[in-house]
């Protein structure tokens, strides 16, 4: 009785979510002339939809039940089938939270746009939210692909929003092409599944494929969803598209759109396909490690703040995939308890990354708003000019670097524990893979911390490096509120992890058939426990409390100096030269110089120095310094591929003769071929 009631409530709530986003979209475009009303409608419906979505998703996860509907459309194969199960709900939960934050933020962020432009942005933004909600809940392949396409196309329109810039148009086209190559693989994958099951319903896709079939399905879906997830080497659209999009869009793209790829991989590998073979799990693990490491290495040398964040998204997708790969491995050797541990790490990181990456992109947007530049070499000193943005960005930077007591630490801790448990799980030589993966995760994490010291330190600290930063201004309060929501989530998901993790139970129960959160939490909910053998324990709330207490102790110890007003301000050490200016500061390029030299094999840095001098080369009059890093994947992998495709396409032009007879002949031949194909015994 009660369950039935809740199911009805969830179903109606979900429809209301979809209607809210649709209303936001339509309301925005209908108010082409009155900007403020359009923005209000877009934000209002976005927030309402997001709140409702968070509630519906939480209800689904906590109840652990599945609600599904189907509306026949009359078109063959195409039922409008929706299904909200715990796996979908984890993603829609993150989507709802991001939708609230970004919608609030957009109200202030779009205020500078003209009425028509902000209406268009609001239209596509809410359409994107709607299609994302559908992607996560579509329950048959046809409807899923339609939602997927609407999502990709509205994302394309959002990325190309500032289309008067050439770089934006190029990035948009790159995204468009990559996205459709991915969709091609997905269609192929679903057709293979259809040929095995004779159905397009997700519910019928639970198959146990033969090894060769598994290989085919595994690689088709890895390529198809991998493009969206931004795994290396399919990632190149991500650092191109995210920076040029408006920042509220970048936040949604990095926070959620990228996660649709992860959702697809989880859905196929854990839900559809039966027990995975070991090699598949190890492939995912290897892809995760390499995406993580390469993503962060490229993030390190970026001086464009938003590109840095985009590369860091690739890194975090890598960390998620590491947890996923470990989980697949444990399923393959029938250790569901460990698989649940690894999956919990991956799922937690999905939600956590959605929070801090949204926060950081919104922060970067606020900086862009205040200074007009994305180039860190032109920033500096923003902490004094934009104090609220600075502290919110700092919270995001600490969280993404995986430091306790914020949320990044929780999911990385689980991933480490899963990798360590992997060593004891099997007697074969494979077990050595796990600690090595763990060590590389440590390298990735430490490099990420370096990248975010750079992102925060160069942008916000010391002196402004340009007049734009000199005259930067703090953002509108709605933008700050929009950032405060994910910032508070980062703290709550960190400190409150022990109370929130049991929510993952229903997902692990659905995908792996075990509920293990009870073993994750001990000592009255204060301590996280990895549950593996002796495992490890950590208590984030206690660490938070002790950090505060010890900071107070430190202040007490130092108070001799603080109290007696025994301090004065003076100039920083300038080597005796008069006055320190912004030119003396370390730059973003200089900060990453040691790592650029150490990983020169990857970056292939080139530099050119031109000096002009009168008498002695030791006293140059002017110096021109240019430094460039090779985009290895773009130049070594994609450029030859692109050239080859264009060359072939040029040759194919021969059949496009422009004569109507030729075209009629093509049609006739195609018809005959199809008839023969259809008539075959």
């Amino acid at each position, binding site marked *: 009785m009660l369950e039935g009631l809740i199911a009805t409530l969830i179903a109606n709530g979900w429809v209301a979510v979809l209607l809210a986003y649709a209303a936001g979209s339509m309301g925005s475009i209908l108010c082409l002339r009155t900007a403020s009303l359009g923005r209000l409608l877009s934000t209002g419906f976005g927030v309402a939809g997001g709140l409702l979505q968070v509630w519906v998703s939480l209800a689904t996860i906590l109840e652990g039940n599945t609600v599904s509907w189907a509306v026949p459309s009359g078109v063959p194969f195409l039922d409008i089938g929706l299904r909200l199960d715990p796996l979908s709900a984890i993603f829609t939960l993150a989507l709802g939270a991001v939708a609230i934050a970004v919608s609030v933020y957009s109200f202030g962020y779009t205020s500078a746009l003209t009425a028509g432009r902000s209406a268009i942005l609001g239209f596509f933004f809410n359409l994107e939210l709607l299609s994302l909600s559908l992607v996560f809940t579509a329950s048959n392949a046809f409807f899923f692909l339609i939602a997927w396409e609407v999502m990709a196309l509205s994302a394309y329109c959002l990325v190309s929003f500032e289309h008067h810039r050439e770089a934006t148009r190029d990035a948009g086209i790159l995204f468009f092409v990559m996205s459709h190559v991915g969709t091609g693989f997905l269609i192929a994958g679903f057709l293979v599944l259809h040929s095995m099951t004779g159905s397009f319903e997700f519910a019928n896709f639970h198959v146990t494929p033969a090894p060769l079939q598994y290989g085919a399905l595994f690689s088709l879906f890895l390529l198809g969803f991998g493009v969206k997830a931004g795994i290396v080497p399919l990632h190149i659209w991500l650092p191109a598209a995210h920076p040029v999009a408006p920042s509220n869009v970048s936040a949604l793209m990095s926070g959620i759109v990228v996660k649709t790829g992860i959702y697809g991989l989880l859905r196929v590998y854990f839900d559809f396909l039966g027990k995975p073979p070991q090699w598949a799990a190890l492939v995912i693990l290897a892809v995760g490690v390499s995406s993580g490491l390469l993503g962060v290495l490229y993030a390190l040398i970026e001086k464009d703040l938003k590109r840095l964040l985009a590369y860091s998204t690739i890194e975090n997708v890598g960390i998620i995939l590491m947890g996923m790969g470990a989980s697949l491995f444990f399923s393959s050797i029938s250790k569901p308890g460990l698989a649940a541990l690894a999956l919990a790490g991956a799922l937690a990181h999905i939600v956590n990354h959605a929070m801090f990456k949204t926060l950081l992109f919104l922060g970067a947007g606020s900086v862009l708003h205040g200074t007009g530049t994305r180039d860190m070499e032109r920033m*500096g000193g923003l*902490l*004094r000019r934009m104090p609220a943005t600075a502290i919110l960005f700092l919270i995001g930077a*600490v969280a993404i*670097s995986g*430091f*306790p007591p914020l949320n990044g630490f929780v999911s*990385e*801790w689980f991933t480490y524990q899963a990798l*360590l448990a992997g*060593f*004891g799980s099997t007697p074969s030589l494979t*077990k050595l893979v796990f*600690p*090595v993966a*763990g*060590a590389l995760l*440590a*390298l990735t*994490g430490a490099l990420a*911390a*370096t990248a975010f*010291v750079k992102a*925060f*330190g160069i942008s916000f*600290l*010391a002196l402004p490096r340009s007049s734009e930063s000199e005259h930067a201004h703090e953002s509108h309060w709605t933008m700050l509120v929009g950032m405060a929501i994910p910032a508070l989530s980062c703290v709550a998901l960190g400190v409150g992890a022990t109370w929130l993790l049991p929510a993952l139970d229903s997902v692990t129960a659905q995908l792996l058939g075990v509920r293990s959160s009870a073993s994750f939490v001990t000592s009255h909910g204060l301590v996280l426990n990895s549950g593996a053998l*002796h*495992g*490890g*324990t*950590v*208590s984030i709330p206690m660490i938070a409390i*002790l950090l505060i207490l*010890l*900071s107070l*102790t*430190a*202040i007490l110890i*130092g108070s*001799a*100096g*603080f109290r007696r007003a*025994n*301090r*004065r*301000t*003076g100039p*920083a*050490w300038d*080597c005796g030269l008069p006055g*320190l200016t*912004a030119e*003396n*500061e*370390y730059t973003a390029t200089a*900060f990453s*110089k*040691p790592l650029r030299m*150490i990983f020169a094999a990857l970056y292939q840095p080139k530099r050119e120095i031109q000096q002009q001098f009168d008498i002695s080369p030791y006293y140059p009059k002017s110096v021109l310094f240019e430094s460039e890093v090779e985009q290895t994947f773009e130049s070594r992998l994609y450029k030859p591929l692109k050239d080859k495709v264009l060359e072939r396409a040029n040759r194919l032009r021969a059949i496009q003769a422009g004569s109507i007879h030729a075209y009629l002949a093509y049609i006739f031949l195609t018809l005959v071929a199809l008839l023969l194909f259809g008539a075959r015994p």
Partner: protein
Amino acid sequence: MSKMLLASIFQLILLLCISPLISGIIKTLKARLQMRRGPGIFQPYRDLNKLLRKQMVIPETASWIFAAAPIMVFATSVLVGLLVPMITAEAPLSLFGGVLAVVYLLGLGRFFLALGGLDAGSSFGGLGSSREMTISALAEPAMMLAIFTVALSASSTNLSEVVRGAIGQSWRFLVPSQMLAFAALFIVLIAETGRIPVDNPATHLELTMIHEAMILEYSGPYLALIEWGAAVKQLILMTLLINIFYPFGLSLEWNAASLAIGCGSYLLKLVILSVLIVLVETTNAKMRLFRVPELLAVAFVLGALALISTFLF
């Protein structure tokens, strides 16, 4: 609960009191080995006392980050100190965090210190921050591999579990994997505490500084907190090294006799490790910055070999 509180306070006092002493012992030993008289082993206490009373000069360009960094460095180091078993096999707060919490909390302190270095806006601070972050990032995987090797044989990341596992097998340190892991972790110790051949703690020569460049703008009580925090961090890393690999004398229960034995053997082991550090510092020259990654790569390979040999032996 009260036992935990008592143990925490005891270890807290021990940490804060012994850490400057170890710095002093290392300095004096180094001086003696180089035919100098040296400042005496109690000099760091006098330095701290002096710094805590001195006037501070805060750079005009600095923000609140500059003030937050020393406090964070001190708080994270001391907190980590409570997670590590020092003289008892059971660390006071080992339930609240294991190896991973240790590494990431130290990382949090370093994160803020590097920001503090950038905050003043001078080239030196940026230079120091950049180098410190780079070297610690490269040291991290070697450290993790070495610790994993030990953690795996105890199948726990909880340090007290690891140490208890080691106590059971008193000749374990002769096993190849343990020796290799010790060597890897020793290199990491040298790199993380900024000692020769990675960094020279005594230098203020502009181009070779790493840690000292980063904290160049700090003075007075802030500098005292950073120095004290650094001393505590050094003590923690040394403690990890001696107690994980050579857990002799660690007391398993709380009574005066075993605590006394614990204290005595702990100090003895610390002095022996200090001698080892001094020998390395005296017999080596500082490396060029871009040779340091090679040293850390050696540590990584040693860690990897340690791991492989746990599989073989």
